[in-house]
């Protein structure tokens, strides 16, 4: 039973399509992350679900019921905004109670819900302060608290961590995940940060130009990206791409190297132009193979990254476990782990794997 379902949802500003028909179904209790580069329409899509943005076409269903015509509050959702959007002239307590008062909840219940939420988010001591007297992390908690007290069917988060510094962001990330495990509501979370998406999500929806590129579990997206865009977007550092052509069941790269393909895994017609993708940890320094001119080396202690170019100029990143002795300027051969190879159509960008229908 899908808790939230989008069917052919479209949004147009005049003749300009922002959301070009998205179908999506999020099960009850799932933590779903919308991720994509800026301008891909992920925030617009969230606002359309929330009801703040009217829908041009298609249907939004919550709990099986079409909610297109309902206003934001009637949909039983709560939203956490990027700028927190706390009411500056109200105390934290008033911020939390405002929504409940508007729904004419009894006073005792408001008080009880605020107490519970404040304990859960550890903001009991801040209840009588005003937002301007709070730190960024505290404001964030209050913003989440304002959503929690409403006890909504679905939580919506619009890039809630983008205003926090790196350390606090990691901390709040864990906190939101814990909150999800604790109250178990459906949550939709918008971010442009694929690390946030990978670490928090049950399901990730990758969006680009108002279209859903792929929807699935984080590791499914990582292991079996449906197209070049998802392959490049998910995973850090990003996947290496080499242009090539199918030649007698193998891939002949533009560099002249030939990569053998595991049989039966790809739908590859002879002579087809393809892009071969391989993640940095599918490459390793070897005695012979693809040549890499190393431009820079990042030594992180436990692992190292080599950045450089293949002979045809393609940028290449290599992940090495442990500490490497390779120096910038070196010219080293690389071996490819053929089990890690992804193959995409050069023309459409689609994955050529047989088990992916995109």
């Amino acid at each position, binding site marked *: 039973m899908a808790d939230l379902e989008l069917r052919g949802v479209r949004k147009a500003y005049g003749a300009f399509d922002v959301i070009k028909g998205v179908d999506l179904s999020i099960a009850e209790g799932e933590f779903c992350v919308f991720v994509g580069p800026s301008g891909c329409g992920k925030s617009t899509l969230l606002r359309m679900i929330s009801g703040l943005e009217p829908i041009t076409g298609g249907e939004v269903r919550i709990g099986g019921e079409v909610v297109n015509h309902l206003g934001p*509050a009637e949909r039983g959702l709560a939203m956490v905004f990027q700028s927190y959007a706390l*009411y500056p002239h109200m105390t934290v307590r008033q911020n939390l109670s405002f929504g409940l008062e508007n729904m004419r909840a009894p006073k005792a219940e408001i008080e009880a819900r605020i107490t519970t939420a404040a304990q859960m988010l550890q903001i009991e001591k801040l209840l009588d302060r005003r*937002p301007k007297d709070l730190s960024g992390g505290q404001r964030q908690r209050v913003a989440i608290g304002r959503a929690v007290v409403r006890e909504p069917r679905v939580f919506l988060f619009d890039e809630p961590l983008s205003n926090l510094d790196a350390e606090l962001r990691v901390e709040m990330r864990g906190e939101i995940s814990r909150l999800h495990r604790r109250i178990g509501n459906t949550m939709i979370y918008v971010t442009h940060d694929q690390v946030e998406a990978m670490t928090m999500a049950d399901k990730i929806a990758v969006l680009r130009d108002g279209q859903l590129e792929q929807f699935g579990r984080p590791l499914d997206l990582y292991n079996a990206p449906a197209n070049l865009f998802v392959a490049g977007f998910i995973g850090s550092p990003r996947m290496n791409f080499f242009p090539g052509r199918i030649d007698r069941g193998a891939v002949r790269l533009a560099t002249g190297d030939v990569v053998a393909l595991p049989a039966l895994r790809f739908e590859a017609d002879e002579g087809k132009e393809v892009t071969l993708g391989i993640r940095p940890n599918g490459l390793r320094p070897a005695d012979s193979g693809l040549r890499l001119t190393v431009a820079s080396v990042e030594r992180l202690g436990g692992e190292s990254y080599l950045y450089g170019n293949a002979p045809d100029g393609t940028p290449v990143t290599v992940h090495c476990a442990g500490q490497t002795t390779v120096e910038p300027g070196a010219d080293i051969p690389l071996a490819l782990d053929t089990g890690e190879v992804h193959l995409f159509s050069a023309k459409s960008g689609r994955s050529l794997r047989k088990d992916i229908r995109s």
Partner: protein
Amino acid sequence: MASFLTRTRGKGRLHWTDWASYAYLLLGVFIMFAPVLWLVVSSFKTEAELQHYPPRLLPYIQKTITLPGHDEPLPVFKVTRGELAGQEVAQVRRIGLVSQVVRPEDPQTIVKVSISDRAPVERVALATTNYSKLFARFNFPRFFWNSLFITVVATAITLLVNAMAAFALSKYEFRGRGTVMALVIGTLMIPQTVVLVPLFLVVREFGMINSLWGVIIPGAATPTGVFLLRQYMLTIPDEILDAARMDNASEWKIFWRIILPLSAPALAVLAILSIMWRWNDFLWPLIALSRSENYTLQLALNSFQGEFTTDWASLLAMTVLTLAPIAAVFAFLQKYIATGIASTGGK
């Protein structure tokens, strides 16, 4: 703050530019306050003192004395020449250049003294009768109430109406929003005197001539107010409004609970402007109100200036009473003008 105000260019001692600055500022203070002080001091002078030439800075009152056989208190003079020289006498009446006086010890015996041989005995004192007379002889409380009613009600209506217009013009997207805004601003270019006659006709059709509402309603919506509030409301983040919508707040509630409190600094500025406009307004009340029981203070002040005589003492006293409330309002609200932008609660 203190170090900022006492900052000088010269270190240790004053540079000549410091002297120049202080002199310039003191001149400004003098130009600003001298007329007001002169007004306040003069309002405590008797009619006779006001006519005194050359004018004197402080209010003087001639000493009077009540003597048996005379109903009225008599003004006291000191004789400067003649046989009574050096004595204080009370003047009973004056005929031409001769003053008929009596000595306090002998109130029945009239002595004639040339008016050039006597000088009034005066002391510095406040003629508070100028003020008490306002209440005794004129219906000052009535005028004051009229002014107060018009100012308070009109300001309240102005704030509400202008804030609602500004809210719509700043936070809602609709076709013709720019045009409406341009029209509102455009009305600033039409002088009030041009619309005076049409306005009069409209107000008369509504039967509001000679009613305080006839003064209040026509000026309730001001382009300046709409513009000022709109510019301020544009700075309130839309996300706060969205958050309120998610919180089940109606648009009216958003206006009332979110927009108005957050616009407080701009509303305070508009309130001060509106209070000053309304309190000092003269032309339109003069046209709309013709019965004296509806007069505002400004109209009442005007009525002291007759064709042949002017009751300066009452005029000045009432002017002071008219100034006092507006000065108090300004002193109370001026800190809001300086108060900066309210914290938006965002990043």
